[in-house]
């Protein structure tokens, strides 16, 4: 569980970082303001995924990591290896 949380947080961090620079390079606002639909087709989904990742990175990932650290040796992990009990 701890490993999952760590990978999850790392993935969010990378999506946040890379997404910010990618959307900046693509010109998110200029693209959304343009009446020509071509850029909206890929900018809107990209921006949606980016903001979902950003909000999760800020509001979910830290708590998930802390929770995993605090309960690291508890049932969720223990059940995977019953012999150790």
């Amino acid at each position: 569980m701890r490993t999952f949380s760590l990978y999850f947080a790392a993935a969010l961090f990378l999506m946040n970082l890379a997404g910010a620079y990618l959307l900046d390079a693509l010109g998110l606002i200029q693209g959304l303001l343009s009446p020509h639909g071509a850029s909206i087709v890929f900018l809107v989904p990209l921006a949606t995924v980016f903001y979902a990742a950003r909000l999760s990175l800020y509001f979910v990932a830290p708590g998930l990591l802390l929770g995993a650290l605090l309960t690291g040796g508890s049932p969720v992990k223990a059940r995977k290896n019953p012999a150790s009990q």
Partner: protein
Amino acid sequence: MAAMPLPKNPDMRSLLVRALALAACAAVIPRYVAGHPAGGHFHNDLQSQDALAREVAATVGSDTLARAFRTGSARFDGEWAFGTFTMAAIGLGNVILAHPERRADYIPVMEQCADALVSKGTNAFGTEAWGDFGLDGLPGGRGHGYLGYSNLALSMIRLIHPETHHSKLHDELTEALAKRLETSPRGLFETYPGEAYPADMAMVAGSIALHDCATGAPPRPFWPAWRAAYSEWIDPNSGLLRQFGAVQPGAPEGPARSSGTALAAFALSFVDRDLSKRLFEGLRRSRANVLGFGAILEYPPGEWGLGDIDSGPVVLGAGVSATGFTISSAKLHGDQALFTELYRTADLFGVPVHRPSGMRFMSGGPLGNSILLAMTTATWEWKNRCRTPKKEGL
């Protein structure tokens, strides 16, 4: 007080600990991460201000700005380019006021902004609406209230750089706007034919007051009467300014809204600190806060409406423009807590992108970044640069 017993079931105990960890981290960590740059901006830290200023200067100094706005509406494209140059000039001026050592780098960019603001191309949206170029025939003419924006930028440039080659035009435009304001029946004149906006008049008034500060002109006798007339546009219940007005009595008036109020609170800081503060108090009453992230509600309690070109998107009642513009008056009126709350929201959704050339907000675009520069750098320092009024007869 008895402590709450932990569940005996290990699964339940683990879930409870995880839920508490999630809640505690969500309440503490995001507000710190998004809010930690706010202190630097509030206290005019050079590095904080200069990073955004360098990016804005690079944007308005390049030829890419003309292609940045393609909304399909010539008026909105023109207004946004106009707003970008205006806010960039004001923001860069604020940075110079706080850090005079940046003068040599930013004065040329401010002059470029001024050149664009007085060009026929940038003013095409106003020319189309009125049928004549607003800067022709000065100091005569009528209407063209949008020129208050460019004139405020020219006033900022004049304050910092009295030798600007736009001095003559600036004087003539200021006199023209002052005459229109003085003779306006209810403190408003038209931005476009048949359209008058109190927020635009705040920009007009601010531009005149800052011009007079920059040139040492004596106080204008019409200010007390204008302030009284203008105050009638403030809704007594919400403390917010009406979004649009009617020049003639009895004609319909717009609803009280925060986006116009927030812009006016900033612009009126150059005219009358108390009037600006009064509007700011209305904005404070319209604040919303979730986990330390602040926003300003676009409509007063009990009212609801959609977003438009003035407010930007309205999300769950919070207005993007109102939130961004209120950053300035929170700073000017010393409310660091609100400044930080609003900055956190700008940071979270604006998404700062750090580059070798500085920092800009990914979702701001040229206009949003210029506005955020002008708002986060707002300062009273201009008061210390006013020239002494010239005595008559000397």
